[in-house]
């Protein structure tokens, strides 16, 4: 009788341990799925934001001689020229210190990559002027995104 009682007690403890293990497993699984979902949502958002931002900027400035792909300080820079209050300004879009940045300055002012404002995180940015189009490659977390943008005004 006493042996039967102690067996019941052991079985109860085993059951409590199994219950705790199952709880931990479900929490761990939930945390993992939540982590993956938020990580992917972040990646999607960063990618869509940067790609759409660049495309909108280029389309807004799609005039003859306004869009150009330049190289400065070993950096690939997209330069968009526009007139503001009778003066010519340039918007530079480039990648610096793991960030996609934008810098607006007078066209005759010296370009300083450190002064740009962060748009999104990016590990690399390349742009190249093609015949009637602009080829943009953006690298985020090791994944390259390529975007061709057909230009009415061509590249300078």
């Amino acid at each position, binding site marked *: 009788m006493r042996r039967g009682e102690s067996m019941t007690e052991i079985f109860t403890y085993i059951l409590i341990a199994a*219950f705790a293990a199952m709880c931990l497993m479900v929490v761990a699984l939930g945390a993992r799925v939540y982590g993956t979902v938020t990580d*992917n949502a972040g990646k999607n958002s960063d990618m869509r934001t940067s790609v759409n931002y660049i495309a909108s900027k280029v389309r807004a400035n799609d005039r003859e001689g306004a869009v150009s792909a330049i190289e400065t300080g070993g950096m690939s820079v997209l330069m968009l020229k526009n007139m503001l209050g009778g003066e010519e300004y340039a918007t530079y879009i480039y990648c610096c210190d793991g960030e996609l940045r934008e810098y607006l300055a007078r066209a005759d002012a010296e370009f300083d990559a450190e002064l740009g404002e962060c748009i999104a995180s990016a590990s690399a940015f390349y742009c190249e002027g093609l015949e009637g189009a602009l080829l943009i490659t953006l690298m985020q977390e090791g994944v390259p995104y390529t975007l*061709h943008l057909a230009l009415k005004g061509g590249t300078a």
Partner: protein
Amino acid sequence: MKRNPVLIEMLLAVLFFALASTVLVQVLFAAYENNAQSRAQTLALVALEDALERCKADGALKEGGEVRYCDENFTPCDEETQNEIRLDIAAQKTQAGALYTVSAAAYFEGELLCALETAVYRGEGAQ
């Protein structure tokens, strides 16, 4: 025979937990699947926009179809994969020029994920 109330309580708790976790695992799996689908759709959309812009910039559009194989990130690759972008170009020719309708569709693991369409006009003598 004397029953242990703690044991019965634990058995009931485990049973209830098992039922609840079955539902929870299903929900988590659905969330994971949805997320993977959403990621693939976003990548496919960027790839489709790129393909259509390429056609718009192309000065010498030709009627017909084309298949581009891609990896899981919808980056073009040389290998034959189940992820692909299918382009279909149809032309309506007139004396003044031609109106090209470009349809692009992205397939992920053999299934249609999303499709886009655009039209490009090329005047007479533009090509």
